[in-house]
């Protein structure tokens, strides 16, 4: 039985379509992220599951039970919010106890349970502090403990880390995943941060304009984007508009240059396609040795720590390539370089019947 099932969820606000038919099944114990830009409908979908909003049409099932018309306080769904949501008048332990108090658990048992959960999130020592005495990261940990205290059937996390600084964010997301795995609780995580979604999820659902563009494992989403939008949104991607030149040999024409792309084999000759190449597989060398014969000029270099990102203008497109700092040092801005990539490493999406997408800026 699916942990959560969303069936044809629609939500309109006047003329604005926030959700346009979401169908999704989440297995029990699975951790699924809703990933997408602002306004894509991910938070709306989460609020429908939490019961804070009602769908215009469609149903929500949790563990096989239709909960679409059940009020939020009777859904047994724990939620961690984007904004700091701890009750300012209660200490950390009282916050965690709140759900148990509402459920009329005995004072002793609920306090023991609250302390146990605070220990689980690493805050056993801060039980008696008020929210204003806790850092943002600590507050979100308490909020997580509070949501888990009621032993919910489902845990919802609405961009819980977006207000935190980068280091705490990484640390806390790993902790969320660790706790989720340990407790085996079905979870839905909403984020606009693709790195966050890819790093902690069993599966990621990429949303755009109220629809699920693609759902799959993080490696599927990253390695085989199903639509131009997913390719654009997840990771940095070189998006090369080309035409299929030789479907038998697997070649496309880009800016009068022939490039080997295995994925176009079997496609109609002359089809307009978008060739997708990740920056990390693009090889850049001083001009003159490229087999693919694509030549350009280095226009910028950005040091990113583990790699240096080069922008190379080759044909109408500015290519992005990630190189080690040592190799990048040999290719200064203005240098003539040749580009190539493994012919098996590129993905292809058809552009037939589609408007060409906006150029990516990485």
């Amino acid at each position: 039985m699916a942990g959560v099932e969303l069936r044809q969820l629609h939500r309109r606000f006047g003329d604005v379509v926030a959700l346009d038919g979401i169908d999704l099944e989440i297995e029990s114990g699975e951790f699924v992220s809703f990933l997408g830009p602002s306004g894509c409908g991910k938070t709306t979908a989460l609020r429908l599951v939490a019961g804070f909003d009602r769908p215009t049409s469609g149903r929500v099932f949790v563990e096989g039970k239709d909960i679409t018309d059940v009020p939020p306080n009777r859904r047994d769904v724990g939620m961690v919010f984007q904004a700091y949501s701890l009750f300012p008048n209660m200490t950390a332990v009282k916050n965690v106890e709140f759900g148990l108090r509402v459920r009329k658990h005995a004072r002793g048992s609920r306090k023991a349970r609250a302390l146990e959960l605070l220990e689980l999130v690493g805050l056993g020592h801060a039980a008696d502090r008020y929210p204003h005495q806790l850092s943002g990261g600590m507050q979100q940990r308490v909020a997580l403990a509070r949501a888990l205290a009621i032993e919910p059937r489902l845990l919802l996390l609405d961009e819980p880390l977006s207000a935190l600084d980068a280091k705490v964010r990484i640390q806390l997301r790993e902790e969320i995943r660790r706790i989720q795995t340990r407790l085996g609780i079905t979870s839905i995580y909403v984020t606009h941060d693709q790195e966050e979604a890819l790093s902690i999820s069993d599966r990621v659902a990429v949303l755009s304009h109220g629809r699920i563009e693609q759902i799959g494992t993080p490696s599927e989403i990253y390695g085989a984007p199903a639509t131009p939008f997913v390719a654009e949104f997840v990771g940095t991607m070189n998006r090369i508009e080309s035409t299929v030149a030789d479907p038998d040999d697997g070649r496309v024409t880009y800016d009068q240059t022939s490039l080997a792309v295995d994925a176009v084999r079997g496609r109609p000759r002359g089809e307009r396609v978008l060739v997708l190449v990740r920056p990390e597989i693009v090889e850049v060398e001083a001009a003159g040795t490229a087999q693919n014969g694509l030549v350009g000029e280095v226009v910028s270099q950005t040091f990113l720590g583990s790699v240096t990102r080069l922008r190379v203008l080759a044909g109408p497109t500015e290519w992005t390539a990630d190189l080690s700092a040592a190799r990048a040092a040999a290719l200064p801005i203005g240098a003539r370089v040749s580009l190539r990539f493994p012919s098996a490493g590129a993905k292809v999406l058809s552009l037939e019947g589609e408007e060409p997408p906006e150029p990516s800026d990485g």
Partner: protein
Amino acid sequence: MTPRKHIAPGAVVWLLLGAAYFVIPLAATLIFSLRSNQTGTCCTLENYGEILHDPQFSKTIKTSFILSLETIVVTLLLLVPTVYWVHLRLPRLRPVLGFIALVPFVVPAIILVVGLLDIYKGTPSWFYAEPYGFLVGAYVILAFPYMYFSLDAGFRAIDVHTLTEASQSLGARWTTTLVRVIVPNIKASALAGSFLTLAIVMGEFTIASLAVFDTFPIYIQYINQNKAYPASAVTLLSFAITWAAMLALLAVGRGRRAPAAAGAH
């Protein structure tokens, strides 16, 4: 080395002027109240004795105090859920409520009392003929803007939506959410509104006089007209009692020490 804190001489002058504005009348009243009602000479406490032994004094001050408390309770019971709901679900009504709250400022007391006497005519005598009925009805209207604007500011300082949703997701019903989560976090503003209400009701003269009820301000007025020196004593006593009442309210409202506005980001 820590920097020295300078207070500009100009600021000191203004501070002293401000203090003088409050202190001089009080000091003058105090000196005046210590003069003998018979001989006019200083200094005696006989005026205070006379006032404190006057049964009318304790009776009227008790009436006004109970009226204040009753008004505070009724206003809070009416307004806290209303303002909560408006902030949560009907934010478009906020300007409307703000406008209605200004009405008691622009309607003169005489018009208010004549209108109320007319409207309440025919109501049971326990309401119409008693200060604890009729006057509270009028005072709730007078206190409305003070309480409304205080509460409105309090609700704006907290994240009503997130706190409510967090509480609901943990299984709380509306009443539990309101009592356990919302009210404790708007307590400071509810207290501020209550102070203002207390001060207004303790000093309200026009409506009580026109509706012929015997409240503390009516008593002060009576003493003022008849006894010059005791009038100063009763003024100072009323001042002290009002302050004591406010402190008591503060102590009751604060209860256990809890942090004020926090977490409302």
